[in-house]
């Protein structure tokens, strides 16, 4: 088991730079998830750690050893691919044993390791089958089994659940969490699915356009996003963003006026904000209340019933469309005139640069280093 350290890692394909200087420490035994939109470089970063791509600049350490110049096989890593990457002509057993045959393991040792991993993943009855005779979920287990038998220092997962159906994805997610707690191995996991990231990760690394936007525990990212990008990416449905203008600042207090004229007083550190500066107010759909009376008026554009709760999309008169989530069945119909209110305590403020304002009372420590949650 090992720590993975990236120092100023960069990667260019020809003249296109896809990773712009990434610094990151993945602690021993930690489960870190790289998340971001398509093309953000998360898979490339994983492949750099695996050694399937060479870093253009920077240093990569696994277990305190610089591995930039080591081939993948010597990095003591194992990788689970999105497409499973099973050898189609080999049985499940051979798929798992193939990588071991060279590692100077005796036949009985290989056999023992393969059968042990197969039992752990409950595929011990499938060992004689070929990959094409397996379901997607079973193939995924074989791919994970092939990683386990190698007893690596670091497990790398490249979107392993994206080819599974929804039910199987939830089940496999739970199994991967259990696997991590059983094996206590360092795991790095790439996904574009923020639900996977939230449920699996000890810490999440949010990537965008080849840069780290924020590193932190799932709840830190949810409750205290460092910037507009993270705020918009983490959480579903997406956080509402309302353009506004600063009217007044005081110690630990910012007053803004949102489009349409409503004024809000927010308990946030104003930093160097000045009056009349444009600013963005962020509010999660759960904190938006739709009712007969309120400061913002609008019309219901769309209703989505989810059973245990429902989503209302409200077109406001002067601002953007707002999303609200409330428990139970919807009590409003499409086209109905409604008013929207929200709790200033739950609002986030983002400067024109995208940077979030810190909440009053929380120290301005770098994002991700404090496990404390912010509930304003």
């Amino acid at each position, binding site marked *: 088991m090992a720590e993975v350290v990236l120092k100023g890692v960069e990667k260019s394909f020809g003249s296109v730079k896809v990773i712009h200087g990434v610094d990151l420490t993945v602690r021993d035994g930690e489960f870190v998830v790289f998340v971001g939109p398509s093309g953000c470089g998360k898979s490339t970063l994983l492949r750099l750690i*695996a*050694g*399937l791509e060479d870093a253009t600049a920077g240093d990569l350490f696994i277990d305190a050893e610089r591995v930039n110049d080591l*081939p*993948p*096989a*010597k990095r003591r*890593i*194992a*990788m689970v*691919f*999105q*497409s*499973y*990457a*099973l*050898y*189609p*002509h080999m049985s499940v057993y051979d798929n798992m044993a*193939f*990588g071991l045959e*060279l*590692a100077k393991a005796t036949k009985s040792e290989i056999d023992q390791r393969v059968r042990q991993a197969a039992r752990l993943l409950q595929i011990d009855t499938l060992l004689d089958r070929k990959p094409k005779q397996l379901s997607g979920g079973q193939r995924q287990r074989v791919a994970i089994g*092939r990683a386990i038998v*190698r007893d690596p220092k670091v497990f790398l997962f490249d979107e392993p659940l994206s080819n599974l159906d929804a039910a199987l994805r939830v089940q496999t997610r739970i199994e991967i969490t259990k696997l991590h707690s059983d094996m206590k191995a360092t795991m790095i996991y790439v996904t574009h699915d923020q639900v996977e990231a939230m449920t699996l990760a000890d810490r999440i690394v949010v990537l965008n356009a080849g840069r780290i936007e924020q590193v932190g525990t799932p709840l830190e990212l949810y409750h205290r996003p460092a910037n507009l990008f993270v705020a918009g990416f983490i959480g579903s449905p997406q956080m509402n963003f309302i353009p506004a203008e600063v009217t007044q600042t005081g110690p630990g207090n910012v007053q803004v006026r949102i489009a349409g004229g409503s004024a809000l007083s927010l308990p946030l550190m104003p930093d160097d904000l000045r009056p009349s500066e444009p600013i963005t107010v962020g509010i999660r759909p759960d904190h938006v209340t739709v009712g007969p009376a309120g400061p913002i008026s609008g019309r219901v554009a769309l209703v989505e019933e989810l059973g245990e709760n429902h989503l209302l999309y409200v077109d406001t008169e002067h601002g953007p469309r707002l999303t609200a989530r409330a428990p139970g069945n919807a009590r409003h119909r499409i086209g109905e005139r409604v008013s929207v209110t929200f709790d200033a305590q739950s609002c986030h403020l983002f400067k024109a640069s995208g940077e979030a304002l810190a909440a009053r009372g929380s120290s301005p420590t770098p994002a991700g280093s404090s496990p404390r949650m912010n509930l304003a």
Partner: protein
Amino acid sequence: MSDAVAGRITPASARRRRSSLSRSRVRAAWLFIAPPLIVLGLVAGWPLARTIWFSFTDANLNNLREYEFIGFENYLANYDGEWLGLLTDPDWWRSVWNTVWFALVSVSIETVLGMLVALILNAAFPGRGIMRAIILIPWAIPTVVSAKMWNWMLHDQFGVINDMLLRIGLISAPITWTASPDTALWTVVMVDVWKTTPFIALLILAALQMLPQDIYEAARVDGIHPIRVFFRVTLPLIRPALLVAVIFRALDALRVFDLIYVLTANSRDTMSMSVYARQQLVDFQEVGLGSAASTLIFLIIALLVVVTMTVGRLRFGEDAR
């Protein structure tokens, strides 16, 4: 629609409806199949039938109207205790052996070389597209043209190959490549390899490019040696395509004619079954004997096709399970 209708009408009328539908389908099918069947019958079936018929006659090229049925005498006959006929002709057996030897050796060399070329072309390097086009040139040249070209290059006195070998001192006297019994068949094999390696290379390359890339990355992560990956992963996965390429080439090689005829004419050392048949039929005007030889070639190749297809189906069946 048929379900809804069938629910209301009696089973008997339903059967009639279905059968009238399938009857019209069968009619349409025959309509579409008929033209190619007629063309095939005219260009392949009729000549084949005539060849087989002539093989049982004493027909002569001088006068193809008058001949007599003589049964199996072209194949095997006993005159006064002496066995005669095609099956007793040492030249025929020599040509059979030449053909089989040529097919085995040339197809083996072509497969190995073609595989190497395909593996090289499968790697990403600048100018790969041009290389792929260039490698096809020998295959694109008509056999007669390339055989004639090699004939000049291999000429014992004025050929460029003897000249080069003499200059670098590999040989002390010019070699009569196509005439000497020691080198003739090997020379034919060499030219055939030069010409048809691109064909196999291209078929294998197509198979290689169908392979998923992720398993090679998985093998890299697992630290498996590339040579081992080739024999344990690549080769098993391209086996179906390889099999098709080898069967194609083997059938091609078994009926080789133009290359050998242009390079060495009717030399006994290199005579293939097809060259033998042509010699009997045209040079000796023995239409009956030539037809008998052609019929035997047809039977030998047909038998090999059936065998390879059966073996292939068994193998593929194994895979499908």
